[in-house]
């Protein structure tokens, strides 16, 4: 039977993470459909993903705000036609997928990094310090995908698009407001380069004066450690780690970050890791390809000038 991918999109186009989730789905079945929920516009880009045979699109305001009950009401009945549904393991997917699994009385298979068989998967546990191989005995698989572990499918396809009706229910959770971080820089997840700052920066002003220009110079997204976010130097959305975002860019530059396990969990699969830290024993150096023991105050401007 077919498998369904719940598209991650920005209201206009599907994100690259959807192309990656499709790649995970294709490892389970050759018949992959994509569900675009919320707005209609991203359906076109979803239909172009290689390997996708059909796109379903359901318009609704509650869905565009990722209200879990609305997603559950849409996807649960659809599962009569599918063996599996895959969500991108971001905030929206993690919010909705377990709800659907519970409704269907099946397990949630979270954060998969590898498909090893039609019902077998590998997933990190303990902040990525161990990898668990699991085999499901359920008839329906509800999965979230750690997209950094999968390659993105191309955009040479032309699948058919079918509009479906989102269940018109009233939910006991309602949207009030949102405060989204606006930025012209690349998005953290999916960025080719990331520059992250830690507690060492000491203030929001310093973070913006040091980390942001370096990121701009490199065309990189900006990230941060939990300590930097907790202290208000950077927005919550920038947190990289076990409980923040997981990134795997070509280049990750960690400035004034010690390298706690919880931070490493979010970036240790980056291709090249650079660490700038004044403490030669900082754990970040144990995984850095290029380490510079120096005060960031002089090192970062110097580095920027040498680029």
């Amino acid at each position, binding site marked *: 039977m077919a498998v369904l991918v719940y598209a991650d999109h920005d209201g206009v186009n599907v994100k690259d993470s959807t192309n990656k989730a499709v790649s995970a789905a294709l490892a389970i079945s050759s018949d992959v459909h994509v569900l675009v929920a919320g707005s209609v516009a991203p359906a076109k880009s979803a239909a172009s993903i290689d390997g996708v045979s059909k796109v379903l699109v359901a318009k609704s305001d509650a869905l565009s705000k990722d209200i*879990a009950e609305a997603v559950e009401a849409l996807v649960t009945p659809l599962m009569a036609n599918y063996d599996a549904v895959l969500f991108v393991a971001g905030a929206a997917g993690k919010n909705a997928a377990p709800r659907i699994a519970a409704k269907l009385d099946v397990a949630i298979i979270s954060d998969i990094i590898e498909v090893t068989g039609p019902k077998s998967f590998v997933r990190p546990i303990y902040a990525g310090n*161990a990898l668990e191989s699991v085999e499901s005995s359920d008839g329906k698989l509800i999965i979230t995908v750690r997209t950094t572990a999968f390659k993105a499918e191309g955009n040479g396809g032309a699948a058919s698009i079918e509009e479906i009706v989102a269940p018109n229910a009233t939910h006991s959770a309602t949207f009030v*407001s949102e405060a989204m971080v606006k930025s012209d820089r690349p998005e953290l997840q999916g960025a080719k380069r990331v520059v992250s700052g830690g507690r060492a920066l000491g203030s929001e002003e310093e973070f913006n004066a040091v980390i942001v220009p370096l990121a701009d110079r490199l065309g990189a997204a900006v990230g941060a450690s939990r300590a930097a976010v907790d202290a208000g130097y950077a927005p*919550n959305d920038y947190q990289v780690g076990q409980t923040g975002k997981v990134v795997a860019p070509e280049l990750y530059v960690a400035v004034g970050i010690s390298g706690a396990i919880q931070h490493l969990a979010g970036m240790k699969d980056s291709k090249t890791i650079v660490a700038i830290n004044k403490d030669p024993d900082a754990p970040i150096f144990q995984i850095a390809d290029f380490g510079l023991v120096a005060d960031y105050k002089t090192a970062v401007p110097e580095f920027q000038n040498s680029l």
Partner: protein
Amino acid sequence: MKILVPVKRVIDYNVKVRVKADQTGVDLANVKMSMNPFCEIAVEEAVRLVEKGVATEVVVVSIGVTQAQETIRTALAMGADRGILLTSDQDLEPLNIAKLLKAVIAEEKPDMVLMGKQAIDGDNNATGQMLAALLDWPQATFASEINIDGGKAKVTREVDGGLQTLEVALPAIVTVDLRLNEPRFASLPNIMKAKKKPIDIKDAASMGVEVKNHLNVTKVTEPPKREAGIKVESAAELAAKLKEAGVI
């Protein structure tokens, strides 16, 4: 208003986890165990709601080995009123925990369940959402701010891209994120007081819930090791090396 807070006993977050040589799991022998940090934040928030006069009672529940009593005692020392322990030696999946919690909720009838967004062992981030589905309650996950007023909770959530605020009608499930609060350290007098607070201990099997694992763990392995690279002497050398390696 009564708040139920589920808490989990896990390997302390500072401990370096070791995978067992026979690939059956991670080594739990002689390892420091603590309350899951996210559960601590949930307990703290519940206690603060009592201190603010919004809530009247905090009941903590843990499901697991008998030593999970210590985890419950920690919560009681932080200010929770009483505890429930459902004993089980099995490694239970989130769905089973959610079903057992549903049975506890049928008895306790709380107005809100406050719980951690994820446990740092399985890293699933699922139990709260599953419980909400089983109860058909609204959910507000990843909370960084909670305001309760007139039978409703206004919850600010940490989502990709920023913050979202939802309003949920009570009863509801709220799962908490790191920035909701900073949990207190229990004072010595409160630790002493907690020893006298009641913990109701019963066998999970007595709850009338069918417990079945859906995922068979075939092996647990170590992730590939990443080797340390080189140290450079200056920022200029760093830039040169990155160019040489074709990274920039």
